[in-house]
């Protein structure tokens, strides 16, 4: 449906897509293949990824990645857990992949981020913690592979070629 030149989505389906997003938020360390997300939303696997991206502006697997990085940042900042343990708790099976992806997304290695955050004073105690968490979510507007390539090429702009 198109209203005023804008592509419109059925609110009933959006509400169910939101349920899939909520489920990833609640358990971002778990695996969320499209089949599982589509089942939560009650939509077909074929339509899920596209509908999710239209609704939330980001493909579901990349949304999950932002949540994992956000959680890892919070654990680095607020706990003394070993980095290996944080990688494991936030859903990575390999410390190498965690470290590389973390650096690609945030620009810092997990250890660098922890050292800097621990040194900086925080004034967020008056904000409910869930909203603090959202404020620290990485704004990942391009695929990590694309970000990696841009950084390597020294480029600032590129067409997004990722297929959801």
């Amino acid at each position, binding site marked *: 449906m198109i209203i005023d030149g804008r592509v419109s989505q059925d*609110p009933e389906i*959006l509400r169910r897509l*939101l349920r899939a997003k909520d489920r990833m*938020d609640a358990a971002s360390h778990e695996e969320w293949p499209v089949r599982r997300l589509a089942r939560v939303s009650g939509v077909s696997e074929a339509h899920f990824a596209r509908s999710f991206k239209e609704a939330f502006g980001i493909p579901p697997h990349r949304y999950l990645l932002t949540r994992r990085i956000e959680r890892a940042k919070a654990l680095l900042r607020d706990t003394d857990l070993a980095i290996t343990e944080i990688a494991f708790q936030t859903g990575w099976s390999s410390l190498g992949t965690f470290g590389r992806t973390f650096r690609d997304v945030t620009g810092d290695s997990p250890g660098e981020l922890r050292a800097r955050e621990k040194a900086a004073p925080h004034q967020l105690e008056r904000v*409910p913690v869930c909203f603090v968490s959202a404020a620290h979510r990485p704004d990942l507007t391009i695929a990590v592979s694309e970000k990696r390539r841009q950084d390597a090429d020294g480029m600032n702009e590129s067409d997004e070629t990722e297929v959801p």
Partner: protein
Amino acid sequence: MSQGVGMVGLYVRDQDEALEFYVEKLGFKVHTDMKNGDYRWLTVQHPDQPSFQLGLFKPASPVLDAGSAQALREIVAKGAMPPLVLVVDDCRAAFDRMRAAGVEFNQEPVARFGSVDAGFRDPSGNGWKMVQSRRKS
């Protein structure tokens, strides 16, 4: 209180459904429910907060044009409306009671920073944090 915020409105997809949710499941009371043609002014109140009303409004004509109404229905369904906070004395007890009543929780109670908080959504998609009053913790 003679001055201050008296009412804040939420957009909901269906006012009957919202009324049932906020009254039957959350324990609010109806303050005003008036219909005028297709328009319905519906507000509810927390039983401990007589000076504040929560409005439950449907984004629809005659107040809004069709395109704006549709855009708002989508935004609400995507959970993109601003955060809401419900303060309770005992977060875990409220969680148990509300979940048994069928409330859709998106976060189970977590103890952190001297309090306990949980998260739930109303049927329309509005997201609430339920935070335990720090006085009790």
